């Protein structure tokens, strides 16, 4: 297990399908790497325009949600310190139905342009939401086509119920307790999606509980066969 997971990364390319996918699983790791000098490009495939959370009480609707979520995403990126956000313009819920060649070509373009030292995405098949799985599959497919020597390492997020059973324990566990402030700010930026009470246990959650809930981020390094 590597606890200094992303230290010394030059450029991390994060590819996830929804605004807020970065908040719980990756934001601490990114804030940490950025503090150590890394560049981060975050390609967010959709604007999460089909999300069912609209604030509580609801302040958004299907028409206003995309613009609201884009602003939330930008705020989250500022909180983390992400230097380069790309909104890729795909439609929520449709990644698995997209033209694969077109999707892969966009990802290939990013890889060529950014030349990342590390890629972070969802583990295909173990990421619960169909968009997560399809996003991860497209990234793995595209990187898998590169010659072995040119493939950047890929750290995958997984949270399906069976993920540890099948994949084993995550091989990268990052301690991000020092970066909880950035992480909480990233989560809170998505105010249409997460309610403070739900998140903070009605404001009574102690610092220690927050550290236990949010202080570690787990990844599985993808093994290309």
């Amino acid at each position, binding site marked *: 297990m590597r606890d200094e997971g992303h230290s010394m990364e030059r450029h991390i390319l994060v590819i996830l399908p929804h605004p807020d996918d970065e908040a719980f699983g990756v934001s601490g790791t990114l804030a940490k790497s950025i503090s150590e000098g890394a560049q981060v490009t975050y390609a967010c495939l959709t604007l999460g325009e*089909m*999300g*069912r*959370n*609209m*604030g*509580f*009480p*609801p*302040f*958004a*609707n*299907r*028409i206003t949600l995309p613009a609201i979520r884009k602003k939330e995403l930008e705020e989250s990126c500022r909180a983390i310190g992400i230097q380069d956000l790309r909104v890729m313009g795909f439609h929520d*819920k449709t990644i698995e139905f997209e033209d694969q060649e077109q999707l892969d070509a966009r990802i290939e373009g990013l890889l060529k342009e950014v030349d990342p030292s590390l890629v972070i995405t969802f583990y295909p098949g173990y990421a*619960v*939401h*169909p*968009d997560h799985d399809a996003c991860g599959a497209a990234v793995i497919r595209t990187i898998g086509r590169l010659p072995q020597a040119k493939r950047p390492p890929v750290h995958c997020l997984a949270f*399906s*119920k069976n993920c540890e059973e099948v994949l084993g324990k995550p091989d990268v566990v990052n301690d991000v307790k020092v970066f909880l402030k950035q992480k909480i700010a990233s989560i809170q930026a998505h105010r249409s999606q997460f*309610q403070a009470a739900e998140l903070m246990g009605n404001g009574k959650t102690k610092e220690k509980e927050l550290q236990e809930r949010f202080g570690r981020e787990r990844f599985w390094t993808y093994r290309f066969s």
Partner: protein
Amino acid sequence: MQLINPTKVQQMINAFQGQDLYIHLEMTTGAYAAHVDNTKHPAATFVTNATIRYIHGSIAGNAPYRVGLKMLNGWLYSEGLTHWEETETERLILAGHDSQGKLVVALHLSRRPF
């Protein structure tokens, strides 16, 4: 979004009668329904920018509300509507939110594409 005012919604339904309209119609349990509780059956469906024309329509019930639009060759029906957007004067924006504020159902009508 505000709680539905059925009188005002009925006025808008009347104003849209007999015209070609773009619709967004949706119902969802959420993509995580089965992940959170494996006895749940996750389902979602939506159609955006299909066009319809109705010969008459009305809102019924008492919070949550139902809307039925009678078309020349069929019906559009939606149940569980709780909220509308009162600032929208050219589009009818109706939605049903559960007790946690999550969207369950949506029915939107507009003369222009969404």
